[in-house]
């Protein structure tokens, strides 16, 4: 073999080796594990079925009946009640043949009561004075019916001119509710399990064994940022599930959220939002509205039976 041919052969080997190295450089990255651009871990924690909560049914097909007279909504105590907030109740009263009236913003409670059959007190911002309370007590003594809707203390963003800040809103129902043995809590209730989409939207039910007419046919009522309501020797109409808690970290339990006074003429619910257009059809809320109208229709009739329906004291379980 000539020297020139030997050199050529070795150069060929050199070229082949170089090609092999270049080829490996191109192939190895393809065989190597992904650098993270593509692929990655599976995420069973994001399973869509598990993430989608089951909604409470909302139908709203109740049909209020009864013979309701004049229903007076108090607005003279800074009551935070607008028409749309209680629209389902106003409509139900109307369907039952009743007449809805509102007091003036600055007074007129006593004069309004003289013509009313039912008084509705919603989330007042100012306390009822002794003379107001006397008027309400006389109204009840004469067979009138009262519905009190409370709300928990809550923070609200308020602005006045350039000033913006958080203020606390309180439902000042104590002076008007306590003469009837009814007391409202101040802290909101929540339930991490039995709720309508959010922990503050608690699902409540009539206590086992209750036969109070005002919760007849009701299985579940959803309340929205509710507060406890207790009635000494009264009747519990609705309780939260035992998984509910109060925002002040009280031990979980079934908290009463709707009660009837011992005399049966005053009904109290720790929420007003369930009456709003958006919520009155959820679960059996519409049935509760119907029963409230029937409760109103009993004004001027003989009162007293409903309070003894169960004999259960309206306190937390």
């Amino acid at each position, binding site marked *: 073999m000539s020297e020139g041919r030997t050199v050529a052969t070795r150069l060929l080997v050199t070229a082949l080796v170089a090609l092999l190295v270049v080829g490996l450089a191109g192939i190895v990255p393809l065989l190597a*594990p992904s*650098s*993270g*651009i593509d692929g*990655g*871990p599976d*995420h*069973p*924690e*994001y399973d869509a079925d*598990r*993430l*989608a*909560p089951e*909604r409470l049914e909302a139908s709203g097909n109740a049909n209020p009946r009864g013979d309701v007279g004049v229903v007076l909504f108090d607005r003279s105590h800074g009551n935070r009640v607008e028409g749309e907030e209680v629209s389902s109740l106003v409509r139900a009263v109307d369907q039952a043949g009743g007449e809805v009236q509102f007091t003036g913003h600055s007074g007129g409670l006593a004069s309004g009561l003289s013509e009313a059959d039912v008084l509705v007190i919603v989330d007042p911002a100012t306390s009822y004075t002794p003379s107001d309370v006397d008027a309400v007590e006389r109204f009840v003594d004469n067979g009138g019916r009262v519905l009190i809707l409370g709300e928990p203390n809550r923070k609200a*963003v308020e*602005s006045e001119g350039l*000033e*913006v*800040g*958080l203020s606390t809103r309180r439902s000042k129902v104590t002076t008007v509710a306590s003469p009837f043995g009814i007391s409202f809590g101040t802290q909101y209730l929540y339930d*991490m*399990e039995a709720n*309508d*989409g*959010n*922990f503050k*939207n608690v699902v409540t039910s009539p206590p086992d064994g209750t036969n109070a007419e005002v919760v007849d046919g009701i299985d579940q009522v959803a309340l929205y940022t509710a507060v406890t309501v207790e009635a000494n020797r009264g009747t519990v109409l609705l309780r939260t599930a035992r*998984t509910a808690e109060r925002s002040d970290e009280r031990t979980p339990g079934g908290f009463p959220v709707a009660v009837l006074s011992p005399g049966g003429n005053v009904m109290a619910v720790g929420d007003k939002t369930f009456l709003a257009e*958006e*919520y009155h059809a*959820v679960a059996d809320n519409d049935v509760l509205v119907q029963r409230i109208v029937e409760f109103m229709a009993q004004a001027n009739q003989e009162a007293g039976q409903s309070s003894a329906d169960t004999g259960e004291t309206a306190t937390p379980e």
Partner: protein
Amino acid sequence: MSASKLRRFLHRATRSWVLFAVLGLVVGLLVAPFAFQAANSPDGTVAVVPIEGGIDGANAASVSAALQEARSDPSIDAVVLVSNSPGGGASASETLYLEVSRTAEQMPVVASVDAMAASGAYYAIAPADHVYAKPSSLVGSVGVFVQRPQDPQPIDEVVASGPKKLSGGNERDWSYKTESLRRAFVGAVFASRGDNLTISEEELSKAGLFTGAQAVENGMADEVGGSSEAIRAAADRAGLDDYRVKVLRPGGEAVFISRANYVASGTEDKRLVSPNYFVGSLTEEPTVPNVLMLPPSVLAASADEASGPTAAPNESERQEGTP
């Protein structure tokens, strides 16, 4: 020199032991520094990736890029996340969760909570193999809040193609959407740390904030310690006796909405801005839904901010000094 003389010289040279010995010495001296360096070089590298400030899109992109660099750099064997963040936007926080999950699939990831790993920041570090927290660290706030747009329907000025086009849904719809987001967040934490957690899913969902010691007690963190312990633990998990530490500090400016995090931060390029950066003005209704993973105090701070002169991001305090 003639060709014959050259051939004779080469012939003699190839038979000379001395010449080959000299050649060997020269080659040896050339290669020796590399050998010495190799003998003394660390076994590998632990990358430290800080998660600092409010987690917005830019922040998430920077941290993701640092994690991607760690995954693609063969010299990096483990990652330590150092959190000094109250969380931020939900989407950006989820991005970090997914990036950290991916990284943890590839190499050991250990987290160290500096001042805070709250809400979205805790979401980000949850996939870590081990979490250290200092006694004063704040950990938790596992939850979301949603600023939903109000429904302006019916409105004459805008014609929408559907009843939910302008609002995305009513208040109740948004409650269920928020519940779905909660489930995703809580589910991710349990998927990542379920074996370590002693806190129940229900209790975790209450979104409480815990000190480092409390977090160790309820399993949201594993040990009390700082970033040094986290680096050692990461190296140990990667089987490194001798290691170098490389800080992959995300590029860009860290934007802080809490002074505690701002002061604790070691980064040079940082800025303290109003919580409104994330929350907006509470007196203005959001035009689009805003899903946030931040501690609740941010809302109150935003309200306080709204009552005084609002600090626009570009007017806020800027750190000029060294870390």
